[in-house]
């Protein structure tokens, strides 16, 4: 996608309909990443971009996996929308969060614009369990 720094690699997600429906590839822009590395804090303006990506079809096994030379598993397939968070400690203060959470569709094409999602939909869970400033630092090797 052009954001060269990959903060997180990929996550498999199970919505109980498929064994492994999606990859979640998370990116942070290099400038904010450099600041985070130096200060340990995400500066206002930090953007994290979560790219949603289906796995390659057709499935060969009940859990959705396929056999390939590397073994049995999942290859990246079609893109499937995106979630984006932006840090702004003032702008989102009325929502009780330092970040704004947006969804640009859970399908392609990605939406050209998006509205702020309510706290109950995204921020609540991030605040409850994400280890660093609503970011799931515990899952991102490059943020530790």
């Amino acid at each position, binding site marked *: 996608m052009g954001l060269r720094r990959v903060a997180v*690699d990929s996550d498999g997600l199970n919505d109980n309909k498929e*064994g492994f429906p999606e990859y979640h590839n998370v990116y942070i822009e290099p*400038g904010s990443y450099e600041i985070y590395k130096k200060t340990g804090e995400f500066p206002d303006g930090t953007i994290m971009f979560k790219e949603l990506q289906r796995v390659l079809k057709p499935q060969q096994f009940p859990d959705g*996996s396929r056999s390939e*030379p590397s073994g049995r598993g999942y290859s990246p397939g079609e893109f499937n929308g995106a979630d984006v968070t932006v840090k*702004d400690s003032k702008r989102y203060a009325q929502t009780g969060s330092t970040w704004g959470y*947006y969804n640009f569709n859970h399908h392609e094409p990605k939406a050209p614009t998006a509205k702020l999602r309510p706290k109950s939909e995204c921020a609540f869970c991030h605040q409850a369990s994400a280890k660093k400033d609503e970011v799931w630092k515990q899952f991102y*090797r490059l943020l530790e």
Partner: protein
Amino acid sequence: MKIVARVASLASLVGIAAFALALRSSVVDGESDVRMSRADEKPEAVVDAQGNLRVPSSYHADYEFLGTWAIAADKGVGSKELHNVYARPSTIAEYHTRGRFPDGTVLVKEVYETSTAPMTTGTVSHAQTVKGWFAMVKDSNNSHPRQLAVGGWLGVVVVRRGKSDENNVNRLQKRLVSPATYPPGPRTGSIRPGIQRSSRRREGWHR
């Protein structure tokens, strides 16, 4: 990083409206030229005069994420390994332009052990511990005759040992990466499945 500047200014001025459109337009208006300006002017060498290969230490900064291959869990849902593959932006651009990888193209694959757990969004397997790396460099002229470039590629596998700080990739690489000699053998054959975990060893993609 034109794309970053554009995204950042949008975010600060008018929110992230048109964010996706900005991304899309950047892809077609010469972004590859911008990408080449930083990381590819003087790419880090990964192969020495004798054809010995090492994993580039700067790939997280200078390479672009190509995609991930997940090895399925032996039992239950999720995956037990994530294989993340990276290449330099200029080599990806040339592949799109000419339909082939130029000589000197480097592909890096990092192999992560996963941790799988239920979360609000479902059961998630996330990268937990790096286990090692594969690297391969395009060498269609077989310019290192003592090494065997199979299918036009030289390859190496680096297996991480121990449980030290997996986040410090550079330090690990200094400790683990040694010159690799491609093992002699036939030029054709099956692709080896998976990564060799039992010992530090060297091999190519194909043999």
